């Protein structure tokens, strides 16, 4: 495997691309840095928001299903609970359906979990580099593990609350999707 050129936000100058300029390692590397910088940042964010108290019986998952327009990979995700109130698991997962509507199982083999009493704006997840994200929660959480890292065009994701603590309210789930084609 080759060595990726480190992405960097660079400014192209007229002198870099003018007639008669030598096509050098430096210039090609500069282009590569810029391309990788752009490619690293091409993703779109799907956001599931549930205001108020949530539970698996009150959540209208079909109304918030996500359609996947192009083959993509999961770049990052975060799950926020605005207020946990009591102890107990709060968790969301997604059922993945293929282009024919056949279920392929859950997106997460271990879904993100927040389980800590009386905290506000607790947030867990993973960033685009695979690092854990944790805010306002110090125990009883799981960042989550993907079962599927890549999704094909025309798949759909149907969100579902898989656990909720008593009187927990305000769930937000961000899913970053990086197009692969």
């Amino acid at each position, binding site marked *: *495997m080759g*060595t990726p050129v480190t992405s960097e936000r*660079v*400014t192209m*100058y007229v*002198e870099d*691309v*003018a*007639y*008669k*300029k*030598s*096509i*050098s*390692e*430096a*210039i*090609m*590397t500069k282009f590569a840095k810029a391309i990788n910088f752009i490619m690293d940042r091409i993703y779109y964010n799907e956001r599931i928001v549930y205001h108020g108290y949530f539970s698996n019986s009150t959540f209208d998952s079909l109304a918030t299903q996500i359609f996947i327009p192009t083959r993509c990979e999961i770049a990052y995700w975060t799950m926020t609970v605005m207020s946990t109130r009591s102890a107990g698991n709060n968790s969301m997962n997604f059922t993945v359906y293929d282009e024919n509507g056949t279920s392929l199982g859950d997106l997460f083999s271990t879904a993100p979990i927040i389980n800590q009493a009386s905290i506000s704006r607790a947030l867990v997840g993973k960033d685009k580099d695979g690092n854990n994200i944790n805010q306002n929660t110090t125990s009883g959480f799981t960042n989550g593990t993907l079962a599927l890292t890549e999704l094909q065009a025309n798949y759909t994701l149907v969100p579902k609350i898989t656990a909720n603590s008593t009187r927990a309210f305000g769930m937000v789930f961000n899913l970053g999707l990086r197009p692969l084609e």
Partner: protein
Amino acid sequence: MTFSLTNKARILSSQNNIQPQLVLKIDGIPYLFGALPVTTIGRFDEGHLFDEGLFFDKPIEDPYSRDYISMESPTTNNITQQILQDKGGTSSISGFVIKLVNKNNELAEIFKTGNLVADIISRRAKVYMGFIGSVFPDDYILIFSGIIDEFDSSSGSAVVSIAHPDVIKRQEFFVNIKGNLTSSITNVQTNIPVNSTTGVIAPADIQETYIRIDDELMKVTSFTSNSFTVQRGQLETVAVTHDLDAEFSTFYRLQSTPIQLALKLMLSDGLQSFTSSEQIKSINYYSPTLYVQNALFFDDFNIEQELGLVEGDFIQITGSVLPANNITSTVLSFGTFEGGSYVVLADTLQDESTTTASFSFKSQYNVLNEGLAMLPEEVDVSGHLEQEYLFGTGFPELDIYLKDTINGKEFLDKEIYFPCGLYSIPRKARASCKMSAPPLSTQKVLNLNSETVSNLSQLKVRRSVHKNFYNAIVYKFNNYTLEDKFLNGRITYSSDSSSRINFGTKPLNIESKGLRNTAGNIQFIDRQSSRFLDRFKYATEYIDDVKVLFKDSFNYEVGDIVTFGGEDVQLVDYATGEKFYKKRLMEIVNKSVNFKTGEIKLSLLSTAFSLDGRYAVISMSSYVHTQTTLTRLKLKQSFYDGTYDIERLKYENYIGQEFRIRNEDYTYDQTFILEGFDPSNTGQIIVSGMTVLATDDCIIEIPDYDDSDQNAQVDFKIEYAFLNPQEEIASVTDASNFEVTNVSRFSIGSIIQVHNDDYTSESQEVKVINIAGNLITTDAPLNYIPIIGDFIELIGFVDGGLPYRIL
């Protein structure tokens, strides 16, 4: 690809009185046979005593050195390589003979059957070349590798004959097997009873197996000793009934791209077996300062070079006391250090500072149930992959039907390489290949001029309609399934050639059984025909018997690119009308080396002769450290380039040339002259002409294209690419007459091409025949009427320099 030389080898080869040294190494025999004693580096852990008179950092005579090689007849003292580009192959010596003197009757003991090796015949052997004072193997280059096919002995000497790997390639394989039905079969029956299937090759990877009975082909899915299970009526044949005793014969099908096919056919041994190799020195740990996770370490052994392995090949470890280390894994990367090398594997290994483990290896291309069983050390795998990397997307998919037994070398040359524009060459004593394409200086280029050529005044620039000349390319392809005839043909004819050289039609005929009639293959045939014509249509120039100095050229091979010419080369240049031969890139097509006299003769071919464009590569550049004195620049190891382990070697050919040094935003932008290399600091170059100190991370590049003088920057212009000009159309009279925004960039004779913004309108290439004010007139109407704002390409440079084109 030239041989890489160590610094020491470079220095030794540059001495005035060169004394070449040959070393013979035979697989399984520890002794190193040399014409002179073979020296190596002494190590602390090899049991040398300090009262032996050893010194730090000095070479010592290898304890296994035996200076038994006699340079007298019949020892081979001359090697010749010749490229036959228009036949897809190479002629080179088929063997290397070495005479060994039987001192103290020691040869009898060494070569005694069953002593060190089971039999000297069929052992693999390598011949290396170095110089007196060279350290083995670091400072040597491999000049021949093969199998001992003859061993003659007398009381005073022994003669070892080594056959070239091409001899292995010449063996027959995919032997056609015939047999008979043991009962009649219906037209739907899929179990076919036969008298015997012995010798039939099972399908694997890119190879399918069929049997032919009468005019029906059946695809074999499995077979026993006396029956086949098949799919009936394959490859456009019709399933019919067949009689008892009807004859069957094997029919194989190979499908892949040429490089993949060539590698798999050469490297497959039919068994996908591993080959045993060296003892491992240690695992992960080599010394307190050298630790590489998941690495196998070796002393005095460059695993990548010696075995010819590449990333992705397989390593099997056995004999470790740690069971977790006895695994089969994939090669991730290689590394070297002074006196040894290591290979990094994909799987986790546990530390062993010393180990009893040894390893065996298998090429990732050893996947077929039939092949030439060549070892990676006999095949230039990385050279093949380089061609695939450079031209890969342009290679066609071959689909070859093997109706009869084939000969390895003939099949590779004629059916795989040649139709795809490749030709086989020996590289680093291995079977390699190269693309028929204009020259590219992808490696360090040797400059041939009055300083490096010893017989300049005797040279002749030659052109002939009998050699290196074709004005038509005839492809016959799409071989019929059942008979040996071609269903399609395509002729590309150069009218430019015939109007310039009135010699009738001289076609280059290419017959390909593997090219099928697909749109992609037709595109490929057209593109490759153009490449062949570019090379041969004007009876390209060639120069024979160029005598070059040993020190400059011994590590160059046929297929390598050199520059030849310059103002000091007083050969009339009929292309330019100048009295000197304008410097250009040429390809070495013939090389002869005499080990006794040190004489090297080359034949050069101008493979870009009369082209209307230039093909070049990306130029080198480097970051520098903060400059403290205006006459020195310290270079950083910059960008990626596996060729140069010392950054300044990028600039070795360009002492005396002007370079640019600038910062990222061009607010600092100067030029300097490269005066030389600082002998006291390997990272530093000596410069002149600078007036302001450079800051950290300033960039050295070659300067912008100098279009004021066509003889300025000649080396840079022929080797490296610059951005071509692009102009816009300002007004349009008709398809042949239009005004341009910057007419000063055009000259009569320029080739131009016009297109709109999204290339939905794109003209053919036409020539500028008149310029009046801003009005351009072309020799033929564009194939569409351009509009204001359309773009003009391929204009070239105002010094007469041709545009840089995409290969």
